[in-house]
């Protein structure tokens, strides 16, 4: 009955694997073997389909049939019915929850493609070191359209109407920013691209610059046209050598092609781009600090106003946008503001790129329309939590953001919802943590980052964050008191309220948001002197469960401080006064006799 070569693809993503997808592969192959089809039909395991909720999933090619919640027992029916008789197994098809219809062809199943790539449209498609490939995919078409069809004011208007907001963190309306810079009169203005992506765990800007540098160059030129500037500057982290290299190549090629430089496309518009390097200071993501750094100074922020759009680089009006913001510009110009504003939520339009990382299966870069829920991102695209652990929290917005919990999973992601829940969009880092993570320690991790990265200019950030970190240290050492929690909260609120720049104004967020959502953990640390996640070393005690111990002496031998004693074949004990809680005994024990509490 087989008329053409068929392929059966079985999801081998971690989620599906844990629900026996490997056994499905075995069963399918056995069925094929038995039917003498082993040579005709191949069964292959694939990466995650991102539909883990309905896993395991199986897809049949070439007819794109998509089966969900497949069990090993279904293998027989799939082979017998679908492969041999060409009849789809109806009951395994996905039923659209809205229309209640069975979906026959996954081509019509775009709903499982949660992601929509606008900013990342060319990443992973084109060779970033070849401008031809960019041009073939509409590179510089938007610039050409602006220069030949629109006045600068019209372009600003398109951006304004699109509803695009700054992707670097604050979410300031991009069009408005452009308009302000455009309106200031000056002999020289600058277009600045903030590529100082410093959030630990965020790498979308790097990926865009490495994968599609022309999208940024083109957008900067468009910005220059709108604001009356002929000079662009990219402030990029020195830690990103590949991005720097690709950007340089792209700028050169754009120059050679006449898409940068003098008299672009014969329109009389000149535009040039220079690179400036960061040198490892997170605070330089703040625009005034970034500008000081570009001027060769310490990257200390200054009070706004004046805003850079009025008084920026070298005292001249400067429009600062981040990489991802720029990457959205060309599609908006080409497809129109209505198209863009049709994507997303009421106040947050378009898509957002997230760097999904942490204890999630599919670590990677995802771009989803605003309004997608955290659940969709973490469980459907991200493939759920690693090692079958339970989801505990997701940290968004990097060190400036906060931790969201199970109750926020169905929250549509946009600027305002995140802020209302005590976190923020930030640059788009999204770190998922599982049940084994101690939230107090996690808060301390973020705060220590701020302590290290604070520029030291204003007292609340310089001293206050240090004090908060010290209090958290005391708590994780088991020496905290309930009063420490009051101190933490007051410090957090005052630091937010009084700090000079965005870094200090958001630095207490990880602490305050974990205090809001995981107060029980803080209380466990300061009242019971226990760490519920079992992560705070000073709060742990190791003991050997007599029932499981066979007296193999392995633990005693591995203990670096000889805290374990016991005769061979007799139950061993740990002297907790000597134990340094290194956990070596626990790792060594083959009989699960060592417990920690």
């Amino acid at each position: 009955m087989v008329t053409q070569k068929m392929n059966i693809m079985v999801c081998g993503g971690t989620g599906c694997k844990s629900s026996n997808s490997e056994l499905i592969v075995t069963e399918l192959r056995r069925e094929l073997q038995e039917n003498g089809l082993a040579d005709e039909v191949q069964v292959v395991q694939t990466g995650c389909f991102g539909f883990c909720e309905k896993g395991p999933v199986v897809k049949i090619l070439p007819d794109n049939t998509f089966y969900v919640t497949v069990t090993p027992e279904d293998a027989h029916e799939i082979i017998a019915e679908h492969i041999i008789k060409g009849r789809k197994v109806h009951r395994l098809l996905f039923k659209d929850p809205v229309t209640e219809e069975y979906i026959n062809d996954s081509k019509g199943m775009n709903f499982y493609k949660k992601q929509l790539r606008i900013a990342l449209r060319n990443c992973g498609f084109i060779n970033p070191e070849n401008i031809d490939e960019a041009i073939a995919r509409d590179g510089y078409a938007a610039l050409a359209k602006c220069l030949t069809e629109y006045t600068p004011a019209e372009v600003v208007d398109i951006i304004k109407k699109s509803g695009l907001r700054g992707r670097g963190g604050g979410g300031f309306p991009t069009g408005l920013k452009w308009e302000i810079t455009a309106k200031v009169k000056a002999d020289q203005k600058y277009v600045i691209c903030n590529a100082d992506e410093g959030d630990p765990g965020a790498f979308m800007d790097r990926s865009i610059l490495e994968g599609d540098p022309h999208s940024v160059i083109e957008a900067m030129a468009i910005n220059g046209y709108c604001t009356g500037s002929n000079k662009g500057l990219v402030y990029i982290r020195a830690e990103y050598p590949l991005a720097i290299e690709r950007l340089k190549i792209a700028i050169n090629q754009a120059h050679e092609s006449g898409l940068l430089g003098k008299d672009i496309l014969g329109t009389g518009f000149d535009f040039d781009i220079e690179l400036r390097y960061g040198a490892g200071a997170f605070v330089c993501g703040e625009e005034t600090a970034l500008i000081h750094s570009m001027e060769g100074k310490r990257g200390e922020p200054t009070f706004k106003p004046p805003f850079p759009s009025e008084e920026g680089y070298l005292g001249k009006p400067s429009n600062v946008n981040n990489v991802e913001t720029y990457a959205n510009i060309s599609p908006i110009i080409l497809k129109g503001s209505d198209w863009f504003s049709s994507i997303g939520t009421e106040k947050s339009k378009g898509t957002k790129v997230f760097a999904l990382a942490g204890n999630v299966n599919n670590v990677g870069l995802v771009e989803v329309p605003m309004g997608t829920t955290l659940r969709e991102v973490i469980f459907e695209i991200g493939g759920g939590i690693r090692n079958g652990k339970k989801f505990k929290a997701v940290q968004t917005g990097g060190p400036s953001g906060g931790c969201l919990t199970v109750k926020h999973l169905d929250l549509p992601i946009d600027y305002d919802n995140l802020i209302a829940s005590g976190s923020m969009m930030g640059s788009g880092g999204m770190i998922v943590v599982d049940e084994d993570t101690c939230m107090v320690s996690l808060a301390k991790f973020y705060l220590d980052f701020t302590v290290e990265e604070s520029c030291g200019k204003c007292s609340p950030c310089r001293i206050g964050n240090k004090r908060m970190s010290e209090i958290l240290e005391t708590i994780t050492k088991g020496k905290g008191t309930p009063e420490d929690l009051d101190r933490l909260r007051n410090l957090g609120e005052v630091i937010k309220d009084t700090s000079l720049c965005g870094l200090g104004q958001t630095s207490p967020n990880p602490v305050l948001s974990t205090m809001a959502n995981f107060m029980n953990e803080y209380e466990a640390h300061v009242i019971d002197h226990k760490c519920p996640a079992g992560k705070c070393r000073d709060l742990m005690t190791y003991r050997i469960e007599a029932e499981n111990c066979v007296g193999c002496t392995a633990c005693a031998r591995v203990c670096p401080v000889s805290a374990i004693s016991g005769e061979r074949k007799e139950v061993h004990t740990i002297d907790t006064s000597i134990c340094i809680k290194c956990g070596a005994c626990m790792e060594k024990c083959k009989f699960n006799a060592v417990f920690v509490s």
Partner: protein
Amino acid sequence: MSSIQIELHENQVKELVEVCRSFNNDPIELINVLHKAQGIFGYLPAEVQEIVSRELNVPVAKVYGVVTFYSFFTMLPKGQNPISICLGTACYVRGAEKVLDEFKKKLKIAVGETTPDGKFSLNCLRCVGACGLAPVVMVGDRTFGRVSPDGVQQILDEYV
């Protein structure tokens, strides 16, 4: 600072002076110049900062102020094999701290130090953007992904 403590190679000094000139001796290019200078000398000793100060006409205190502000700049020579442990969030939640502890234990040095034989130096950095491989360790330009404490010795062995 008026007494030169280390001898700078004359060619390197010339190269640095040329770098400054290539940036028109413009003070706003200080950070770019320091990047190049660190490229030439491997680090930024006081003597190098004095040359930069003089060439760009920026007070040497200000040059030092900039050098100490940015974590990328160092006034200490690095080991032959500089080891950097990524402590970005993704690496942190996947156990980078334990890997760091193991390196400290094995090399018997603290973060920011170099082993007495000059072979290894140990540093932390924030997110190299290879979060998919967490925890990540870099030795020179080489990246090691999914490093566990058990794998530390294996990495070191490659360089002995």
